[in-house]
């Protein structure tokens, strides 16, 4: 593995401060499992210094050369929200420019073959690895019904709806300002929908703020529903070297508690692996 140069093929805004970027790696990268992430450079110089962790959103085709009949080359996509300096610099990149990235990194979502229905819960930009999952399942020909509960601050943040529709999933939006879908939190919808689903074996996949994931972990653990979560921690290396990104693992019987590196053992964990009370 090594840092690989990638060419920006598109970078456009989908919603206020949310950008979708296509990157064509100049050398082949391993195929990503949904839930994995890349460490992306946002500058060429020494400042800002560190790479930014960004999830795999999906694959796309680079525009094909005019002369050729072949399909365009396989490119990857990321979707990001402008937060600070690094993502702001990313948002200013134009097609043809280069950046470099390392990845795909970490552990992605597990398949959950025994579930007959899949329930995806996203909080804000936490949609990225979940759209990645839905896309991967459909590409693999998985026809199980998918329900996506997506909570956001306001309706305009619930973006890329056509993309989601194309994945044949049921979208249940929730907004804190009530401008779109359920007025309130994504987690408000969890218990009612689980009631609705009844006895059909279901599995839950979630990515969002800690408090949301903690709540989902509680509900699914009570109901003994398999639940995977994708966690977010500040990262310096993304490679397991610096120990910046740890969360506390749930202590097993008679064993001392251990830290888990979100970049290496995660970012996707089984909810029961995490000690949700340490933060």
């Amino acid at each position, binding site marked *: *593995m*090594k*840092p690989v140069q990638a060419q920006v093929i598109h970078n456009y805004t989908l919603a206020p401060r949310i950008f979708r970027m296509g990157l064509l790696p100049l050398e082949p990268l391993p195929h990503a499992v949904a839930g994995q992430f890349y460490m992306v*450079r946002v500058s060429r110089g*020494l*400042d*800002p*210094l*560190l*790479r930014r962790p960004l999830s795999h959103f999906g694959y796309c085709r680079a525009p094909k050369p005019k002369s050729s009949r072949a399909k365009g080359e396989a490119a990857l996509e990321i979707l990001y929200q402008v937060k600070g300096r690094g993502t702001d610099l990313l948002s200013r990149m134009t097609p043809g420019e280069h950046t470099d990235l*390392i990845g795909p990194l970490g552990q992605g979502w597990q398949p959950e073959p025994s579930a007959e229905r899949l329930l995806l819960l996203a909080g804000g930009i936490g949609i990225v690895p979940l759209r990645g999952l839905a896309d991967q399942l459909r590409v693999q020909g998985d026809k199980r019904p998918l329900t996506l509960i997506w909570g956001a601050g306001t309706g305009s943040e619930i973006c890329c709806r056509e993309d989601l529709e194309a994945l044949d999933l049921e979208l249940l939006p929730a907004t804190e300002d009530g401008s779109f879908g359920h007025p309130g939190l994504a987690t408000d919808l969890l218990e009612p929908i689980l009631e609705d689903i009844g006895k059909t074996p279901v599995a839950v996949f979630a990515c969002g703020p800690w408090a949301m994931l903690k709540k989902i972990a509680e509900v699914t653990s009570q109901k003994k529903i398999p639940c995977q979560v994708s966690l977010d*921690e*500040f*990262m*310096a*290396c993304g*490679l*397991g*070297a*610096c*120990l*910046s*990104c*740890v*969360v*506390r693992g749930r202590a097993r019987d008679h064993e*001392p*508690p*251990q*830290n888990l590196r979100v970049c290496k053992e995660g970012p996707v964990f089984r909810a029961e692996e995490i000690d949700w009370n*340490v*933060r």
Partner: protein
Amino acid sequence: MPSLSPNLEVNIAGVAMKNPVAAASGTCGYGDVYAEFYHPAELGALVTKGISLEPRLGNPTPRMAETPAGMLNSIGLENVGLKVFLNEKLPPLCDSGVTVVVNFFGNTEDEYAWLAETLSSATGVAGLEANISCPNVKAGGIEFGTRPEVAGKLVERIKAVCGKPLWVKLSPNVTDIAAVAKAVEQAGADAISAINTLKGMAIDLDERKPVLANVTGGLSGPAIKPVALRMVYEIAQAVKVPVVGVGGITTAKDALEFIVAGASAIQVGTASFVNPRAPIQIINGIKNWMRENSLERVQDIIGTLKV
């Protein structure tokens, strides 16, 4: 005629290195983390994550904050502890063929001594690096490394039981680093590594809160290079034992500047987070620079600064 392949070998007080570039403590795990990027044996040496008597989970998160051209960390010396290190981490590291230097620290002089004795008798360990930037629990938590007498006394104690070359890694958070360097040299340190991270802080203005859960942390990366370079220069002027330079080294040019300033070897830390192959690129860059300048032995350029 200069040879096509310059000789990069250095010997740091009995630790033989095939080139002067080591991976710095706390930035390369136990040698397992960059295996996909290069073979550890390509390094001159690998300095392990700091080892303590008992396992440590470190500080709460956030324990990393990016700062201009650098980063703060308050990892809090998380490590697997002596037992797991010896049983699980050290054997594969030694098998990889890299020269292993084990970084260690304690809360008391007794702990340092016990660790030094045990680690230096483990097979495969080429040398030890004592991190003395740790709070002395018995002296109210003041770092061992901040007062020359205290640092000297600690090193004397370690040296008495340490069966391998002892590098002592200094804290930069002092007024006169040369005085600390002289004290640890007198106490028997075989080499001096400098510098550890500089104490710093970052604030989230909107929240009016410190970014790090621990409030303060250690600054590393390119931002600290000029300070590290100055300190390495001052130490090299003050002592006769070899100096290992560390702090903000990102390129071969940075590394060569430290060597010219008096470092016999260097360590690469934060740069590996951004570019995991940085140490290898630095080794190659040193080789190229020597060829371009018709130099045969890296040893011949140590401390050749013209002031």
